[in-house]
């Protein structure tokens, strides 16, 4: 009896002691990661953050598939599939509205890359025990990726074709707090920020001789510069940096017998910057464009427009037509670029290929012997006859038209077409015949997501016309 009283009192006391000594851990730290403030202490943490930065490129909303594919869907290359999904149909009809869910997710995903890069750049200040060389190598990569992300945002959401326009994008170069609001920069200021980052990156990475196409190296930086200068219509610089990449010697245009290996092997000689995927980190390209041999249209979000088929039908000999699947039993067209690896679903993202450098230089140099040589470098390796200057006589095709067609033939379903049409002012010309929606210059870039306008209290302004 007495014993039991003691037991109850004892158990109460034990409980009280447990309580006061906080057996319950009310200040628990997340065990499966690390605190932001703990990460940037040494080079080990820094290198993990760098891996993390690269991984932000591979999310589905960015180069995991949707960014390049939705941009192609918004051009004469793509055709909307899926379950009559309104968000997809808007791209297919070239009339995306600001509440589009895909657009909204992509916008945030790209800024996550920028936020990760900014954290690294700022975080280097607290890293101890790392060599300057190492710090420079990391910072150089972070700057280049930040520039690329800004550029990808600019060409999707800004008036990238008009350097006098105020409609650039918010340029973010410092770590943000959750309520920081950054207004849109002008287009010229956006370009300047991108170019400054790339130039600094080139300088920091200049001793890097590694040319692994899965990581940023000086050739990747130069290639990005070439692309950015082309969009900015600074042709001298575009040609200059394209030449640096072409002359780098690490890359080669694959010939007509082997060029499809771009899409079936990893890191072909064509790839300047390629994002690798594997069975553990899969990409969405196969599922979104191919799925399975006898897929129905509902199973494929990004089908191929019959306009692209007609385009190839007017290009006899172009071997790239073989990458268009016209035999699907369910009567719709799709690209075969990502049809391999049905099981592994590890199709790479082809961010920059050497072919693009030739075509950039061909455009930058114009209808000149050197320009034509660059253009023909691609044509002849894809089964086409060389273009000769006489073709550009009055009754023949225009040089720049041939070049634009070459870009379309080469880079369809790699996310170039919509931007190419926008920067040459051709969006309405090419896309209006394919849709019942009324298109204007407004449709040359996407609207800023409505969510963003609301979340910034209107500080980030909408593009005209949306």
């Amino acid at each position: 009896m007495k014993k039991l009283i003691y037991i109850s009192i004892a158990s109460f006391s034990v409980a009280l002691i447990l309580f006061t000594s906080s057996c319950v851990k009310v200040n628990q730290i997340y065990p499966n990661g690390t605190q932001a403030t703990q990460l940037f202490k040494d080079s080990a943490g820094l290198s993990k953050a760098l891996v993390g930065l690269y991984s932000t490129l591979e999310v589905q909303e960015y180069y995991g598939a949707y960014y390049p594919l939705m941009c192609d869907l918004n051009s004469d290359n793509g055709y909307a599939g899926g379950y009559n999904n309104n968000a997809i149909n808007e791209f297919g009809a070239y009339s995306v509205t600001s509440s589009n869910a895909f657009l909204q997710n992509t916008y945030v995903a790209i800024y996550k890359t920028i936020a990760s890069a900014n954290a690294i750049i700022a975080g280097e200040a607290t890293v101890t025990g790392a060599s300057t060389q190492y710090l420079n190598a990391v910072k150089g990569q972070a700057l280049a990726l930040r520039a690329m992300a800004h550029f990808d945002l600019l060409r999707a959401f800004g008036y990238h074709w008009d350097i006098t326009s105020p409609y650039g994008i918010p340029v973010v170069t410092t770590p943000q707090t959750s309520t920081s609001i950054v207004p849109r920069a002008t287009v010229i200021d956006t370009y300047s920020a991108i170019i400054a980052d790339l130039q600094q990156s080139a300088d920091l990475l200049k001793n890097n001789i590694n040319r692994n196409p899965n990581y940023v190296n000086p050739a990747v930086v130069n290639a990005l510069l070439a692309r950015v200068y082309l969009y900015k219509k600074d042709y001298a610089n575009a040609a200059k940096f394209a030449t640096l990449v072409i002359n780098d010697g690490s890359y080669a245009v694959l010939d007509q017998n082997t060029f499809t290996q771009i899409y079936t092997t990893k890191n072909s000689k064509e790839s300047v910057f390629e994002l690798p995927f594997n069975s553990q980190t899969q990409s969405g390209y196969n599922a979104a464009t191919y799925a399975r041999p006898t897929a129905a249209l509902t199973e494929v979000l990004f089908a191929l427009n019959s306009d692209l088929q007609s385009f190839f039908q007017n290009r006899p000999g172009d071997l790239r037509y073989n990458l268009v699947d016209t035999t699907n039993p369910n009567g719709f067209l799709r690209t075969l670029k990502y049809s391999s690896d049905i099981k592994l679903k590890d199709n790479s993202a082809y961010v920059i290929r050497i072919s693009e450098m030739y075509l950039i230089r061909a455009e930058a140099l114009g209808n000149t012997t050197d320009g034509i040589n660059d253009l023909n470098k691609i044509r002849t390796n894809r089964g086409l006859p060389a273009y000769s200057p006489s073709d550009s006589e009055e009754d023949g095709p225009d040089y720049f038209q041939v070049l634009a067609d070459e870009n379309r033939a080469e880079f369809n379903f790699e996310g170039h077409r919509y931007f190419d049409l926008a920067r040459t002012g051709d969006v309405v010309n090419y896309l209006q015949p394919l849709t019942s929606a009324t298109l204007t210059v407004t449709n040359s870039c996407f609207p800023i997501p409505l969510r963003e306008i609301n979340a910034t209290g209107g500080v980030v302004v909408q593009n005209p016309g949306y």
Partner: protein
Amino acid sequence: MQQHLRLLKTILIILAFCLAPRLTMAQDHVIKGTVIDQQGNPMPGVSVSIKGTNQGVTTAVDGTFSLKVSGENSVLIFSFLGYEKKSVEIKSQTTIRVTLEESKSELKEVLVVGYGSQKKSEVTGAISSIKNKEFKDQPVSNLAASIEGKLSGINVTQPSGTPGAGLLVSIRGAQNPLYVVDGVPMISESNSSLGTSNNLGGESVGNGQNLSSISDINPNDIESIEILKDASKAIYGSRAANGVILITTKRGKAGATSIDFNVNLGVQSVEKKIPFLNSQQFYNLTNTAIANDIWVYNNDKANGNEGSHFALSDMQTAGIVDASGKAIPNPAAQYYDLTSGINTNWQDQIFRNALVGNYQLSISGGTKKIKYFVGGSYFDQDGIIISNYYKRYNLRANIDYQVTDHISFGLNTSTSYSDNKRSFNDNTYTGVVTNALGASPLMPVRNQDGTYADFTQYQAAWLSDNPVKSANEINAHTYTDRVISSAFGEYKFNKDLKFRTTWSIDFNKVNDNAFYSALTNDAQALGGKLLLGESKSYTWLNENTFTYQHKFGKNNITLLGGFSQQESRTNLSQSRGTGFTNPGNMPSINDAEIVNQKILDYPLVYDALESFISRANYDYDGKYLLSAIMRADRSSKFPTGHQWGYFPSISAGWNLTGEEFLSENKSINTLKLRASYGLSGDQTNVPAYQNYAYYGISKYDGNFGYVPLNQLGPEPITWQTNKTFNIGTDFELFNHFLSGSIEYFISSETKLLNQTPSPGTTGFASFYSNFGEIQDKGLEIQLNTSNIKNKDFSWNSSFNISFLNNTIKSLKIDNQYISSYNDQFQTHILKVGQPVGTFIGVRFAGVDPANGDALYYAADGTKERADQVNFTRDATIIGNARPKFFGGFSNDFKYKKFDLLIATQFSYGSKVFNLIRPTYESLGWSGAATPSGASLATVYANNDTRVLGAWSHPGQITDIPRPSFLLQNYFPNSSEFLEDGSFFKVRTVNIGYNIGKTKLFNSMRIYAHAENLLTLSKYIGYDPEVSSTGGGAPETAGVDYAAYPPARTISLGLDIKF
């Protein structure tokens, strides 16, 4: 048997006393006696006191007592909770036998109030209560079904007919209440990781069916359910914001052993099928649509608007007119082989009549020292969709041991195992139901050779697979092991003070195994796909309370104080294997060619809580009541310095019937007024580890790295605080004919703990913050009448109705658009001044009688066609998912040995967004996003028979637009598909016959039961109650994307007590 012996013994004792020589009457004498109930069973624990003194005893296990009385004309008072008080004058008797009658008054009931119980007459809070007898015999797996429509202020709906699915319980408009079983708060959310709303890439795009872990409790083990609706819930402080459901399970009573065997067996069938077009009508619809298109083109041309709908070339590309623009007769004929004679009714193929059985056996009884209840049950429910089932095994043991007068302890333990064979992708656009709605009637289930028909060969571009194939070839199981166990000890220091300590665990392991055979579309190219998910959750809880109860004069005081601590850990993992050479029915992941371990943001979830609890109750003579609660909670979810939350509440009551001015009033039996105000907290909307900014794990090129995981808001997050004000009255009138209560409340959720949109330039879409306010106001009426009560026949009615009004008062970011499926157009909006659950869409302006175009209001007020609608510009508020009022009405009859219960439920004024209807009312559309893409080989989907009434000639007034092949002549996210969700349901009918006591058993009852017998509603889909988002998120409530429809169940049962 024992009971008989005991009775015999009592009688013998009484006889012995009677026969014994009479003792001379002394001033003091001992009186002995027995207290029995109306059935003649001895009643232990009855308090026996001598009037005018404070002497008294309680009856023993066998109902006997002995008491020394002085003086001849003493009066003994017998009282027992729930029974009418009885006074007996003692003259010279030395033995008496007293029969107590059950109390007529409901206010004598005892309610569980959290950390104790109270007489209903002394309760000052708004508490709804329901006893076992009002919900037993229902063939349901979820206890929430027991209270559907029966209690005011509580809206229980069935978002899905999936066996084992969660029910949506909303208490005064707030969802996800805290469930407390015998004092132990239990995990009630679904721990299943099996995605139920996947897109084709296998990514989850929305909340799907919700398997409730509440289903792990067997409803038949429950003795009573009490629901704390107002400030009385503050005793559960931090987790009580959405109301508290207190569940009391059955316990043994001292006395004879009672064995109860209950079995019921039933047949379920789908409540409603949507009538679909047959093969010929399907064929005709396409031809009508084509003919209409040609007419529209010519009509436009005749009116000088050539091409205003589409161009001649579009019709030529589609193959419906020839090069000269002349109609091609019967162009679609080659794609519709009517001669095949196939006319598949797909709903008949996926739905079936399914059996449900529930078997349970319980033994209870005990002695003065030991009491026990042991029960086991087996619940076996086949789904009304083919190859879907749910089986559950339960075992419960509740044991109480009274060691001495001072010490007692006990153990409650419940274990269960369940196997839920899931219906694939319930609630989304690739599910079994979804594919059946819209599949071509010309498609057979199987080809002649027995293989599944390939859906791509038949005219319904909508489908993602043959629905029968999906149902059979996707073998998805959710296995659950659950142990909820608690041990408690109580020490009574004296008659006033006691100490109680409780230690409990809640272990919940959920394994999801889903195998997609290589025959399925999803896995065809992969060689089979296996998804595995595991969630292991372990919670321990310790609570220690002192209770002091004292009476001085007419003052009664009860004080409660204590502390509690709780810790829980959940480990989660998910993996995927593809490529199986010899898979069988459910292969091992070790046999997969490729194994993919998913990187989860939070593979280990930890949270801890420590709390201080206190409550003081005071009453004066049972007339003036006062209660105050204070609880302090500290949660690990919040950053240091912001972890504590304090939740006080106060309430008062006044029993007017005790007052003189009412004592003469014959028509008022009891009347009580009460009011309460208090705070409670909420932390459920925020995941663990929001105390710092973290980096989580990610991978690139095979290497592990760190990537930003969360961002912190500008202010550290802390408790959401809900403030509730309630006034109410409880009454019994006209000689107990009418009783009930009326409540009015205003409740504000303040410092809303939720995700706030952040500028995307931060790299995050949102952060957690405490901002915003939502207000709920409501009126609740509960009335019970005892219409007829005589020896042979009785009839009781119960009616309740609740009016709720919900308004968003403030938001950090106004006008937030929300999607129910994150790859679709937004369906809802959060806007200040509107309720949560408000729908946005384009307003339907009707059908143009001139040409059958569906018209919609543009933002500028003009009318535009479906292909001209700009969602972002034109969308506006079109309704909301909340009912204006809801309630239930039930009647309970007894005639001799027969009894009958009819329970109905009603709801008025809610809207349902029928997002699947645009598919099955696609009006012959080709499914192509642009007119030039139209292909005769595929039309979008089969349609329901309503489209037979579609626009067919100029001048016709109708709501159903013109069938069109080239154009989608409707806009899915518009009010055209927003429907009235009001309903009246006959939820339960139960008729029984009591055989009564025989030699073999004490009682036997046989009964027939019908569940969901009848639904009256204008809703076009299956059921207005269903919600494809599982209902868990009030922001996206009321969306029907072909959710699993509810079943009607007819069952027979037998209940024998030995």
